[in-house]
């Protein structure tokens, strides 16, 4: 009986060890792939950083109107953001290649699913970028116009508009990524409704002041023949 136990144990050890031995080249390949991709990413990132600096990418982006991108970039530099995105993409590609070396079928499935998911990720990123730019543009427009209309709650109004667009954008991006769609829809409805209600209350309360001012102006209006002395045209 002990012979049988010993034999089984031996076979199991041999099996595990041979399985491990068969996987080891794969792991080494993964390690090499990751190391190489990190090295390549570092090299390409360094070259890209130099090129972008040479063409003054940050300033050019500013002059093309993408001023908001700097706020979301490391060290306020969109060039650095682009460099890091490229570097991480290379490292990620190296990782996928390395995983393929361990288990071909598993990795091919993983790769397939990942590639199926990539368009959604790209769309979500695009939605986020466009939404952020639109939100900032609208917020600034509302702020300037509200100040020019002498509204004392201009900043609140601008902030409200910005978050309305941002909430809408984030909900759209999450919907694209198919992450918790039910919860996202519900949360979006609650948040959007909440912001609209808050804005309506703010504008309503604020316009009380505006109407009072307007009525005061009407009641103290100077007769038609004596006009406002300062004329801009």
């Amino acid at each position, binding site marked *: 009986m002990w012979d049988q136990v010993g034999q089984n144990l031996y076979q199991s050890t041999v099996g595990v060890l041979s399985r491990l031995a068969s996987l080891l080249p794969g792991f080494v390949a993964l390690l090499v792939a990751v190391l190489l991709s990190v090295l390549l990413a570092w090299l390409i990132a360094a070259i890209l950083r130099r090129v972008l600096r040479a063409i003054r990418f940050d300033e050019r982006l500013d002059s093309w109107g993408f001023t908001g991108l700097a706020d979301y970039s490391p060290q306020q530099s969109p060039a650095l953001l682009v460099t890091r995105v490229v570097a991480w993409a290379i490292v990620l590609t190296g990782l996928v290649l390395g995983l393929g070396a361990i288990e071909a079928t598993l990795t091919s499935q993983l790769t397939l699913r990942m590639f199926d998911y990539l368009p959604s990720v790209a769309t979500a990123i695009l939605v986020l970028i466009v939404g952020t730019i639109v939100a900032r543009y609208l917020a600034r427009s509302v702020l300037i116009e509200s100040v020019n*209309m002498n509204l004392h709650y201009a900043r609140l109004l601008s902030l409200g508009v910005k978050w309305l667009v941002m909430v809408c954008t984030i909900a759209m991006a999450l919907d694209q990524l198919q992450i918790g769609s039910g919860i996202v829809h519900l949360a979006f409805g609650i948040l959007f409704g909440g912001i609209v209600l808050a804005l309506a209350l703010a504008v309503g309360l604020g316009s009380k002041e505006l109407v009072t001012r307007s009525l005061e102006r009407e009641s103290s209006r100077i007769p038609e023949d004596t006009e406002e002395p300062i004329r801009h045209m």
Partner: protein
Amino acid sequence: MAESGVEQIESADAVIGLVPPASRDGQSLENTIARIVAMPIPGKVALVHPLLSSNHMEPLKDGSLWRLIASPQLTQDPSALAQSLGDSFRATFEIAVKLNARACAVVASDLSATTVDWVSLLLTPVTDEQFDLVAPCYARHPFEGMINRAIVYPLVRALYGKQIRNPMGPDFGISSRLLQRITGAPRTRPHTLPSLAAEAITNEMPLCQSHLGTRTYAAPDFTNLSSLLAQVLGPVFLDVERYAAHWQRARGSQPIREFGQPMYADTPANAMDVSRLIDSFQLGARNLLEVWGIVLPPSTLVELRRLARSGAAQFRMPDVTWVHVVYDFALAHRLRTISRDQMLRALTPIYLGWVASYALELEHASPEAAEQRLEKLCVVFEETKSYFVSRWRWPDRFNP
């Protein structure tokens, strides 16, 4: 009154275009046309006017040298004033070129105050004295035409070197030579009106100005001031960019020949309420500093912040600060640091701050004192031009 299409007229010695504000009633337009056609003229003159709602005018006398052309393109749209005026001017100019006219006058002011002398004062310098552009001078009190007073006149004078009081008219006399240049320009240049003076100066065409008298205005719409500023300054700043090679060489400024009798309107007796203007500036300083910070250097921002803290009695915006603001906004317009429309609208509170400071300074001043004050501002614009030239050439250089 017999109206003809432009095809029915072979030629004309001069063309007069009437582009009255949209608020004007048809009767006023008919009266003005009747007054103008009663004028004795030495040659054939075509009068281009907007479509009339009714036609109750006396017919033209037999053998009259006047020709009337009704054009639907002649309109003033208050919501897009600069664009509609530019289109109306271009339509009149094209008719003048087609009729081979030696001179063209366009009257875009309210017709209730327009006299036949205006037409003569705008045309005679072109026909008799060979001037290429006749700009208008109006009898204004010190608080009228503030956008022109604070920005357009001093800026055009400092940049192009000619003391032209109303570079944007809107009433002009133009020679056939200048007409050819303007109508020959590509249609992608939509703003004919502000480009007239710049085009004449940069091509070394002789220009003068005529004192036309009082000009009446439509009631001001305070809420639309920011869009008015954007409509007026956008084309001016576009021209600054277009003619950069020329204005960087110009130094100082020269007066230009004047026709007619200079007139001043008295300062209005009713009290001015500058507190609203100061409030607007302070509200801007509280909320728009981050937008101004994209356009203005830190030293100007510090000055504006200091001004926002001062009370109404001490509220004075130094001319140098204001001039730097105008130059920096012109530069930001070129660099597209932020959306051009947003940037021009963000100037409104600072402009109102300058108007408040100017109004407090000149509350009880005579028209002569107001003229001196304006001259002082223009001199600061000219003296500070080197700052603008340097910022224009090296916008990235550190500017504290």
